[in-house]
């Protein structure tokens, strides 16, 4: 099914079609390799009778929408208070070492993007690391080399 057809299905869930813009952008982002190029915004706009500018105004508001290309694997470390108290900073540094990139950047080969994020809602299982939106719990700096090896092998 085309993105447009899938969005048509989504909009039926809502009394007003604009409500489908978040799920539609999520879908378009998945279809476009993890970010929203202008073509994706145009697709969503067309399917929901909105303008691309409107879709951009939405995409730019929410942290999970990306307006630049991302690595094939996205690693995000929570650095909010409870994770920070439990060593999140060391986890970030370990990922930076293992991946050879700074937090907030993508590796030259496009394999990894590393970032830090606000509270992921796993404070009691700190440090929380989201890998392609899947949460790993209780991650310690010592676990990071193994995680990166596993991701490189996958």
């Amino acid at each position: 099914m085309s993105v447009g057809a899938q969005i048509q299905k989504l909009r039926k869930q809502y009394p007003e079609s604009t409500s489908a813009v978040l799920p539609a952008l999520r879908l378009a982002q998945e279809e476009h390799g993890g970010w929203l190029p202008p073509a994706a915004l145009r697709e969503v706009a067309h399917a929901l009778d909105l303008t691309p500018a409107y879709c951009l105004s939405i995409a730019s508001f929410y942290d999970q929408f990306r307006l630049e290309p991302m690595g094939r694997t996205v690693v995000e470390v929570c650095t909010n208070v409870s994770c920070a108290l439990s060593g999140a900073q060391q986890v970030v540094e370990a990922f930076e070492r293992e991946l050879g990139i700074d937090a907030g950047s993508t590796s030259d080969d496009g394999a990894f993007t590393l970032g830090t994020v606000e509270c992921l809602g796993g404070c009691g299982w700190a440090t929380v690391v989201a890998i392609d939106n899947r949460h790993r719990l209780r991650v310690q700096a010592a676990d990071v080399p193994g995680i990166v090896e596993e991701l490189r092998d996958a």
Partner: protein
Amino acid sequence: MPERPQIVFAGTDGGALTEIEDYEAVGGFTSLRKARSMVPDDVIAELEASGLKGRGGAFFPTGRKWAFVPKPDQLAKPHYLVVNADESEPGTFKDREIMLRVPFRFLEGCLIAAHAISSQHVFVYIRGEYEQEFEVLRDSLEAMRKADLLGGVTVVLHRGAGAYICGEETALLESLEGKRGQPRTKPPFPAIAGLYAAPTAVNNVESITTVTSVLELGAAEYAKLGVENSTGTRVFSLSGDVVNPGNYELPHGITLRELIYDVGGGVPGGRELKAIIPGGSSTSILTGAEIDTPLDFTSLVQAGSSIGSAGVIVIDERCCMVQLGIRVSQFYEHESCGKCTPCRVGTRWLTQILQKIEDGRASQPDLDLLLSVCDRIMGKCLCPLGDSDAIAVLSYVDRFRAEYQAHIDLGRCPFDGESSLEGILAPSAMHDGPVHRIAHV
């Protein structure tokens, strides 16, 4: 060890009830049948009598909230139930465990609430980062549909996309309508003009799940748990410098000491307890000396704080309170939607002043300025996001003034690089494209 009646997590035996048969085996859906045999007003009266109050942070009586929704013959528009599953308050991680372990009890509560406000339309706004929780709810909902339990009510699981502000109910409604998640002016309140300007009740996941248990136990039985003005149990999220972090369902009114030491195993390594954030990062901090404060609405107000979302963050002696201020303020700065100037500018300003203090570049007037900026945020915006930053920072200065003063007097951080928050990072600018730089400034 305090008694631990299980209401929200009843029948789970520490595990999860994710198969519909298992849930039915512990009495699942009897509350729904009971509710549907009652007229909506009687369901609301039962909830009022139970004393159940909102678990999202505002502690507003659930039954009363429903009573504010006009009857269908008073306002001929569709009525909506919107469930706030956008749990994002730092220190809080209870709703996700509720959705993972008792998804059917939660969805049953949604249908009971829908009946109470005569709604045929339920939207569950679940935070975008909760992937597994979304899948569990989706599968559970499908099982209920197959079992013909929905009774003509449509339940839509709507995923957010990463914005703390969407936990504020009017911002959530804006977001659900496909707009930027920016709070609305109130009034009108959602009960009258909520989703699509129609009557809407907005309830938190834990509140809705507890509704099922209240109907099962009966209001009188439920109200025996907890303390006056804070009936029932609470799922406390315990995190930070504590031996056994996690979610614990306990009656309201247990003390912080019981939660942190008897249940949570105390502070690791025998270190000294320095501070406790009792209800998520938006609540005022308490000192370690206030550990005998009971965890209920009234006691925490008397202590100058709030039970908030019951996310208890434990902080030991290694933590610099100025660094804590920076990290918390960075969060609110990042999450400010930008609509109200005092919040948009003030949260950023607070971070900058705190950073100056931490760096040893501040002089006495900077501390006064910090407090003045807090004052100029408080109560001057459409929603409490900016207030939350101000409340938190003010409380850190109030409770740990000597430590703030020491930074100024010494011209450096007295922790000399040894604070447990040393080197803390604000979120990286990984999606900070040109648009974001404009949008979030």
